[in-house]
């Protein structure tokens, strides 16, 4: 029971936050962070747990976003329904690509997913009649549940963060179950995992499809709350950012995903004229992270605590 308390405190904090920040631009940022937390959790699942280096997560995010945008704005489909259709569609695409591709290992898997991401991005640009082309898709219809329409950032904040926390909770449960174990085993040693009865192909695909559906969900929510999307959101550098979000805070932990996503999505607000520097900063962060802090920030904190403890014991 004691272990649940931090999460309850966190939930309370999240719900009270908008009141504390009343009217601040940061609520807009938090809405964006909320959507990316959902996507980053998926990345944590497929990269952190199952150990499959998928470089096309941003493409799945974009698929969800565009599916929602097109279905709701061009075809007047109900937003919630469109969101679910988007998730189903993206899941099927992920299954179709994943089943053959996940048999590959190492570089080949990474490049195959990279190539797939490029294809999706190119597709979004060329199918301009539906997607609006390189200039993007504007004035996306707002999200509504029944007769209640969400319009402002404050209004979007609650449903998005509710979904985000639900996703975190569900994923945490999966991680602590036999499925999480199986994925971690296949990441650690797939030969041994197979010999111990783990159907590695099935779990790889499960992780991949699940992460794609999370990304699609996130993309759909982003499309409605931001009202504007562009093919740039499917770019490789965005997939790289999502991987950083999953790893920066601390891989395979709830708070790690929250910290990583918050940092990555707050940087643009802190650095002026950031858009030009985004790629350079992303690349640099990833390199520094992997070379000097592979366990993430939580890992750094842990080793500092351990070192202090050891020093205290002397």
């Amino acid at each position, binding site marked *: 029971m004691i272990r649940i308390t931090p999460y309850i405190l966190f939930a309370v904090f999240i719900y009270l936050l908008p009141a504390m920040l009343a009217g601040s631009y940061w609520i807009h940022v938090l809405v964006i962070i909320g959507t990316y937390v959902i996507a980053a959790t998926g990345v944590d699942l497929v990269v952190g747990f199952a150990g499959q280096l998928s470089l096309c997560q941003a493409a799945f995010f974009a698929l969800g976003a565009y599916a929602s945008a097109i279905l709701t704005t061009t075809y007047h489909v109900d937003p919630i329904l469109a969101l679910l259709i988007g998730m189903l569609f993206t899941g099927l695409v992920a299954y179709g690509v994943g089943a053959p591709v996940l048999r590959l290992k190492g570089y080949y898997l990474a490049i195959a997913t990279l190539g797939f991401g490029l294809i999706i991005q190119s597709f979004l640009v060329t199918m301009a009649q539906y997607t609006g082309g390189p200039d993007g898709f504007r004035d996306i219809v707002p999200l509504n549940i029944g007769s209640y329409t969400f319009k402002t950032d404050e209004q979007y904040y609650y449903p998005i963060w509710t979904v985000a926390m639900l996703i975190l909770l569900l994923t945490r449960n999966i991680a602590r*179950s*036999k*499925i999480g174990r199986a994925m*971690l*085993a296949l990441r650690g*040693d797939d030969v041994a995992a197979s010999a*111990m*009865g*783990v159907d590695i192909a099935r779990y790889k695909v499960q992780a991949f499809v699940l992460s794609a559906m999370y990304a699609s969900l996130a993309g759909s929510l982003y499309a409605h709350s931001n009202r504007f999307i562009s093919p740039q959101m499917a770019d490789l550098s965005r997939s790289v950012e999502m991987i950083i979000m999953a790893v920066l805070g601390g891989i395979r932990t709830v708070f790690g995903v929250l910290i990583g996503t918050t940092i990555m999505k707050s940087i643009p607000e802190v650095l002026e004229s950031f858009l030009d520097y985004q790629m350079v900063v992303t690349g640099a962060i990833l390199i520094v992270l992997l070379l000097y802090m592979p366990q993430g920030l939580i890992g750094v904190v842990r080793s500092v605590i351990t070192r202090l403890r050891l020093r205290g014991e002397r």
Partner: protein
Amino acid sequence: MILEIRGLTRFFQRLAAVNELSFAVKQGDIKALIGPNGAGKTTTFNMVTGLLAPSRGSVFFKGEELATLPPHVRARKGLSRTFQIVRPFAEMSVLENVMIGCDMRTGSGLFSAALRLPRSLRDERKVRRKAMEELEFVGLAARANDPATSLPMGEQRVMEIARALASDPEIVLFDEPAAGLNEKETDQLANNLLRIKERGITVLLVEHDMRLVMRVSDEVVVINYGSLIAEGTPSEIRNNPEVITAYLGTS
């Protein structure tokens, strides 16, 4: 005969690493597969466990031909193994490593896990209990929550045994379990093997350590250059001139 190998052959380029090998393992026995280095023992193992496809021949387990079944299906049918070079699951504790072995016996899936339905929680408790039992059986219960990779190699070997037993297998294949062990650890291993036999589990082991083989085995199969050269009880094998020639003085 719980395990039968008939005409098992495997080519690497044009060389037959295993050549028309046939032998059987009686249920409840401890059978050792021995031979000089490069005789084809590990290749045979990998064909039985499904890691390698035979060029010719078949493997029968409990009367059923295993053909192209992948390793995880064979494991579910009751065929378990350990590895010559330890393969622990890094990033997981000793207990979690062993729990993987039991997981295949539970039926709960993604949905019940995500929602923490009673079925999933029940399976978790069951798996955890079974894994602790096996750790107690091999004497590693005290290390249950330590990271698997923090154990010395000898103890990681023992953990692998617990992991292999966790699925309630009918046969366990041991790939050179004594490699790198000192005398005390080898004696402990011999004890474990005999205790496993007492549980009714069949054992097939590949080994170089002759003392261990002679002490625990009911039957021994000797191969060289991929072919069978002798089969019988340990004492029959010890005095077999062909076997002695094959080893050329190795005790």
